[in-house]
């Protein structure tokens, strides 16, 4: 609102000096100042909104720009002769003996196959030695090969086409992270190798494809960023969410029903209320300390286990769920309760047969929002050992709850502490996955609310 005429405010300093203009149409200096200050204030408000939206856009853009490339991965397609002379020396086909050949024994096969493939396609090998050519392929490849052979021992002696991961640097080259200039300074890759990769790409030996392994593979060691995946982390997070859902939802709903429907104003109720509001404000890392001291040291539960993470996150999300559930119960009008009591239902019957079903959509929405909060939480999990390097998938529940596992946000943190820049790409990609999960949960919550919420 702009004030066009001199307003008769008593505090106006303008009255101190003599007025030059008495016209209502001319704006005097004092009003001009006030209007300018109004415009400045509005501009600052716009600026603040702009900063807020810019921050959101910048945050998402930075994550997307860094992380989208992790959904694609460079693979080398090569025919490998599974040499019986190397893998099964006495030709017995005995699995125990084949298993004795370590991944080290598979390296020469890859080396030979690469040399053969390059010769076959008539590519200039850039004067590289066979070892350097084989270095285009990830150090993970021999393990892939070995697992294949152990799963299909009858393929020994045959030539099989393999899709092997290219090494992290080659993968980075095709995503623009590694350049000819940076390769000159890099001990792990040379410009000649990159040129060779270009040639291989031209004839189709090497291509970049959608990276399913990113979602299913376990974590990989520091030198093999190309093989690292989120499989164990997604599974671990899912296990923790199951624990949280199984514990926090019943506990939270039960506590809210008591506090909202049955409790009388007394010392105990006040104590509970104060505790809940305080717990909602306790820093999440303190819950981690609690988990470490009580669940691991005192109760002797295993470290890095989803059960411990789930318990800690349950305690953390409980206040959120209680607050949401109480709001949902409060939203059910008293007339419903009075009607039920009026036809002779007991208090318990009123709550469980009438109030609770009507409050259910609100409760579920609150539960989903609590779960989303738990899914993104990382600080307490750092303290209970979820940062450990875990390559084994946890078993199926319930035993799997006690197996070591990772969790999505902690896996992200773990990757950011590694040296290779390829892990930053992975971490950003993992964040996209995490955000996608959170977005889905929130959309489900919104749909639930829209569909089932009743306005009284």
């Amino acid at each position, binding site marked *: 609102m702009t004030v066009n005429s001199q307003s008769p405010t008593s505090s106006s300093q303008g009255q101190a000096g003599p007025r030059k203009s008495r016209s209502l149409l001319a704006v005097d200096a004092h009003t001009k100042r006030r209007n300018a200050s109004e415009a400045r204030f509005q501009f600052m408000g716009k600026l603040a909104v702009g900063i807020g939206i810019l921050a*959101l856009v910048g945050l998402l853009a*930075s*994550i997307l720009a860094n992380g989208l490339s992790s959904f694609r991965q460079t693979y080398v397609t090569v025919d490998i002769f599974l040499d019986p002379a190397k893998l099964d020396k006495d030709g017995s086909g005995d699995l125990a003996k084949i298993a004795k050949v370590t991944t080290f024994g598979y390296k020469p096969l890859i080396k030979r196959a690469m040399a053969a493939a390059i010769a076959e396609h008539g590519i200039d090998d850039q004067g590289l030695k066979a070892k350097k050519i084989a270095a285009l392929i990830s150090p993970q490849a021999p393990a892939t090969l070995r697992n294949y052979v152990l799963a299909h021992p009858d393929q020994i002696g045959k030539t099989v086409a393999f899709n092997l991961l290219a090494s992290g640097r080659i993968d980075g080259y095709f995503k623009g992270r590694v350049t000819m200039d940076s390769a000159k300074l890099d001990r792990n890759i040379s410009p000649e190798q990159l040129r060779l990769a270009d040639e291989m790409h031209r004839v189709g030996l090497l291509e970049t494809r959608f990276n399913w392994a990113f979602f299913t593979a376990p974590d990989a060691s520091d030198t093999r960023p190309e093989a690292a995946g989120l499989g164990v982390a997604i599974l671990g997070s899912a296990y923790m969410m199951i624990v949280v859902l199984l514990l926090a939802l019943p506990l939270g709903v039960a506590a809210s029903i008591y506090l909202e429907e049955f409790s009388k104003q007394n010392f105990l109720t006040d104590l509970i209320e104060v505790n809940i509001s305080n717990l909602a404000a306790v820093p999440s890392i303190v819950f981690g300390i609690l988990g470490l001291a009580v669940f691991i040291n005192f109760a002797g539960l295993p470290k890095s286990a989803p059960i411990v993470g789930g318990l800690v996150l349950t305690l953390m999300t409980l206040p959120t769920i209680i607050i949401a559930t109480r709001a949902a119960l409060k939203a059910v009008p008293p007339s419903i309760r009075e009607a039920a009591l009026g036809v002779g239902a007991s208090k318990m019957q009123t709550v469980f047969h009438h109030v609770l079903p009507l409050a259910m959509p609100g409760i579920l929405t609150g539960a989903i929002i609590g779960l989303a909060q738990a899914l993104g939480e990382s600080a307490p999990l750092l303290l209970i050992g979820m940062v450990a390097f875990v390559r084994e998938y946890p078993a199926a529940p319930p035993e799997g709850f006690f197996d070591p596992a990772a969790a999505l946000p902690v896996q992200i943190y773990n990757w950011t502490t590694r040296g290779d820049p390829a892990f930053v790409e992975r971490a950003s990609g993992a964040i996209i996955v995490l955000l996608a999960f959170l977005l889905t949960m929130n959309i489900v919550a919104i749909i639930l609310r829209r569909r089932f919420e009743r306005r009284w």
Partner: protein
Amino acid sequence: MNVSILSVIVLGLSVLGFFLARRRALSKVNGKAYKLHSRPIYYGQVVFLFTAVPALLVLALWLFIQPIAIERQVSAEIPASAIPKGSTPQLVMSDVRRIAGGIDAMLHAGNITKAEFNDMSVDTTSIRSQLASVGIALGADVTPAVFEAAKSYRNMKNVGHTAMAAVVLVVALAGLLLSLARITPAQRARNIAEHFILALLIGASLVAILTTLGIVLSLLFETIHFFRIYPARDFFLSLTWNPQFRGGSDLGMIPLLWGTLYISLVALVVAVPVGMLIAIYLAEYAGKNLRSFAKPAIEVLAGIPTIVYGLFALITVGPFIRDWIAVPTGLGNSSSSVLTAGLVMGIMLIPFVSSLSDDIINAVPQSLRDGSYGLGATRSETIKKVILPAALPGVVGAILLAASRAIGETMIVVMGAGAAARLDLNPLEAMTTVTVKIVSQLTGDTEFASPETLVAFALGLTLFIFTLALNVLALYIVRKYREQYE
């Protein structure tokens, strides 16, 4: 017997009890349900509850107490002479546990038979190498005392588990039979069931108290432990933080507290003006279109996990500040700095401040606004001279709540602030915070006897008290303010 199988059996018994009780109640009145005090389903509920709940409670208690009792028993068995120099009873106990676990693994894998195990002793077999074969690595050879302790640990554990299964099943069966036997047509089954359920509801709401109690006790206990081996004066007053894992560390809290407060201050300087202006603009000026777009967009910021902000600080904001501000001005050269962490934390707090301010602005009665407009004030004058002063206590409360959030924030500072404990004013230097040090002292394989680990609990207690005080103060101010208008 496995715990999950045991609970399934108990639940199965309870469901069985439910149907039996319903049948029994009906058969007592020859199927004429109207002669019963309650509907038959309530007789079932009573039996179900009396079968399941006591048994499951016993199970939970047993699982909680057994490890502690066994631990105590076994560590009493280990003679003081069996504890090598430079080691602690805790270390020996953890060896005992691992040996016992290893023996289980060997029996399970079939490396040794039961009979072999019974004859096994330290003199005849190399336990260490056998354990290594199942993936249990031990630092030193096993002494006879430790091995005997491991054996009795394992024994007690097995006996304990069997006893637990037996006791739980007996409790469940007793509950089932007793409550079944007590069914009469006059039994007030609905009232009994409802009282039982009410007790369960109260129990569930006590979890909040238990959690607080757990937090306070675990922090307090370990902090007292810490102050026994490290002087409290040094912790509170020393200006150096320099943990050494060989002992002789300086564990002064002041540099950490300084870093925490400095970073929080930067965050608040970013978040409070921006967040409040957003709230004011969206509430008082913005048109419907802008509001319907901007408000959810700002709220999205609140739903983003802190690890995302941490990564943003690490890969985008940190390098940007280093290359464009720190290096050109020559004030610093690291990408993690107070400014990086503070800025990103400020962004995180914007939606928090703006939604709190929104509530506060809406709580100011419209009559105050109308009065101000009626006197000819512009909108900004009304906001600055009427609404904000009226809302001042609420604003202060919101700032305190935001400060408590900032102080307790972990991931952003772990990834953006650095690890060097420093007392400095330069915002472009890396500094560290209380939360960062809690994480770094407690991650990895930690042994709970050293002051370097225990200090984390003292830091945690400091953090807890700090944030709690801020929250209580904030709530007090906000509540007091609300009473003025209602």
